[in-house]
């Protein structure tokens, strides 16, 4: 009976989590899949992935800033590729697109283009980060209520 209750509770909290997703910022289908993967063996799976994404992405963006300063475009390409991959798992499709653009600009040694694109990427990530933090906060409130 307790097991049934916990399953039902998890289903309710999952659907509540999905209802918070802004489709302008996150692909609902991709993000929704993370929720589907969450289960009793990893009940905080979504939160773990989000937390990991936010931490590693901040690092990558800071790295890319430094690489651009040092005109180290090879390393910038690699970092953009890494952020692109992480963002794809979360469903942050606009960040994915900007990272792809950044990679191309970097490979073409378009320094000014990289600079602008990196600024755009940082801004888009900022919006995604706020939204993910909001989702986690609302999710936590609902689980505690």
């Amino acid at each position, binding site marked *: 009976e307790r097991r049934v209750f916990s399953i039902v509770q998890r289903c309710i909290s999952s659907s509540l989590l999905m209802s918070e997703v802004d489709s302008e910022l996150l692909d609902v289908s991709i993000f929704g899949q993370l929720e589907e*993967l969450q289960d009793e*063996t990893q009940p905080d799976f979504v939160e773990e992935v989000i937390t990991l*994404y936010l931490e590693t992405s901040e690092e990558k963006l800071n790295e890319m800033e430094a690489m651009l300063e040092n005109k180290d475009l090879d390393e910038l390409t690699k970092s953009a590729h890494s952020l692109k991959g992480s963002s794809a798992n979360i*469903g942050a499709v606009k960040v994915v697109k900007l990272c792809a653009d950044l990679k191309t600009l970097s490979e073409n040694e378009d320094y000014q283009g990289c600079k602008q694109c990196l600024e755009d990427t940082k801004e888009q990530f900022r919006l995604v980060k706020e939204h993910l933090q909001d989702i986690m906060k609302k999710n936590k409130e609902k689980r505690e209520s």
Partner: protein
Amino acid sequence: LSPPPPPSAEDDRRTGKVNRSTSMKRWRILVAEDNYISQKVILKQLNKLGYCADAVQNGVEALAALDTIPYHLVLMDCQMPEMDGYQATAEIIRRQSEGALKHNTCTPVIAFTAHAFVDDMQRCKNAGMRDYICKPVKSEHLRDILTRWLPHQSCTLGQPSTPSSAPPPLPSA
């Protein structure tokens, strides 16, 4: 043949850094993927689908793992540091053709790629990859691809893996 023993600490030591899902299921998949979040997600997907999976971070580690541990299938990211998926797959095919991969004589390699352009598909095909999955992948599609390529006889690691029906070839450029 009986199913393989669960992965041991000795396996970890031999193959270097190996990220392992906690499931001890029948089929064993090797995932070569350098992005840690992608690894976390694909391992969870595989675990939920009922597969045992190990993850490595580049082609060099993939070759080291295949040298000593029998796998039923490899999911190979195309772009990785040290040695990318194309190089690693070409090397796997070469070693298989020379009989040098005793534990993975015919283990199929499936591309696990962020790209879906025709040129990329051709490059995967040229390297010897048998099929491709675009990431992020829906679990249902992942299951379908794995079902197509995993051996359907009782677990016989090291034996040729024949798909249950002839799959379509990779699209040509």
